[in-house]
C-alpha cells in the first residue's frame, strides 16, 4: 500500500487533434465559442438541468456551466492566456480551487492551413508545493486520493 507522502508523478492525459483552421481561429473557437461545441449533454454536471457553458477568455477568467435556474457551477480558472499560442487552466470541477489539476492547450501551425491542438491534463497529484507538509495532514488532497489510486492502477 502506498503511503500518502510517497506520491509519485502520475502520467498526464495527452490528446492531439488537427483542425482546418488558422491557429487564431482555432484558439477563438476553443475559448469564446466553447458553448457552440462542448458536448454538455454528455460532459457536464447535472446534465438534465444544465443550460450553457461560459469561457471568460482572459487571464484570470473563469470557465463555468450555467444552470436553467440561473445558478452556476465553476469548472476552471484561466492561469495563462497567450492567444493564439495557447492557454493554461486550473481545472477544479468537483474539488476546491486549491486542489485544481492543470489543463494546458496549445495551438501550433501544422502547415497546409491546418492547426494542431494539443491538450495536456496533468498535475492530478497537485503537489501544493508551498505546503508539502499538507500531504501528511488529515485533509490530503482530493485529487491525490482519487487519482493516485486509479492512475497507479491504470499505468502499472
Amino acid at each position, binding site marked *: *500500500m502506498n503511503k500518502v507522502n510517497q506520491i509519485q508523478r502520475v502520467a498526464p492525459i495527452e490528446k492531439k487533434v488537427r483542425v482546418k*483552421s488558422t491557429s487564431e481561429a482555432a484558439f477563438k473557437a476553443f475559448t469564446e465559442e466553447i458553448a457552440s461545441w462542448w458536448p454538455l449533454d454528455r460532459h457536464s454536471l447535472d446534465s438534465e438541468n444544465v443550460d450553457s457553458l461560459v469561457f471568460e477568455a482572459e487571464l484570470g477568467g473563469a470557465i463555468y456551466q450555467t444552470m436553467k435556474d440561473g445558478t452556476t457551477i465553476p469548472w476552471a480558472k484561466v492561469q495563462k492566456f497567450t492567444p493564439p499560442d495557447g492557454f493554461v487552466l486550473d481545472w477544479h470541477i468537483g474539488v476546491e480551487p486549491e486542489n485544481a489539476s492543470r489543463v494546458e492547450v496549445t495551438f501550433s501551425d501544422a502547415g497546409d492551413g491546418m492547426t494542431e491542438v494539443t491538450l495536456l491534463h496533468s498535475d492530478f497529484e497537485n503537489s501544493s508545493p508551498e505546503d508539502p507538509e499538507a500531504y501528511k495532514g488529515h*485533509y490530503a488532497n482530493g485529487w491525490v486520493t482519487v*487519482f493516485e489510486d486509479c492512475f497507479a492502477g491504470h499505468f502499472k
Partner: protein
Amino acid sequence: MTYGNIFLALGDPTRRSVLEALRHQPMTVGMLAKQMPVSRPAVSQHLKILKEAELVTVTPKGASNEYALNRKGLDEIRAWLDSMWDDSLEAFKAHVDQKPENNN
C-alpha cells in the same frame, strides 16, 4: 450511476478524508468516526453517499459493516476524464472544420 454523482460525492472535504483513510485499510463506521472530526451518524451519512457513487464497498463484518475503497468508482473518474477530452476535442474539430471562413 452518473459521473456527476462521483464529483458531487468528492466535493466534500470530509468525504475525501474518509476515502483517504480507507486507502490504508478497510474500516468500520466506528473506526472512521474516531479519526474524523464529525459524529458517527455524520460519518454514516457520508459513507452512504460514497457508496451510492460506487466509491466505497460495504461488507458485513460481525455486528457491523466494514467499508473499503471501490476501485470501480476511481477507475471511472479517470476513464471519464479521458473520454471527456476525446469527445470534446472531436466536437471541437467538427465545429472548426465546418466553418468555411477558417479555411484560408
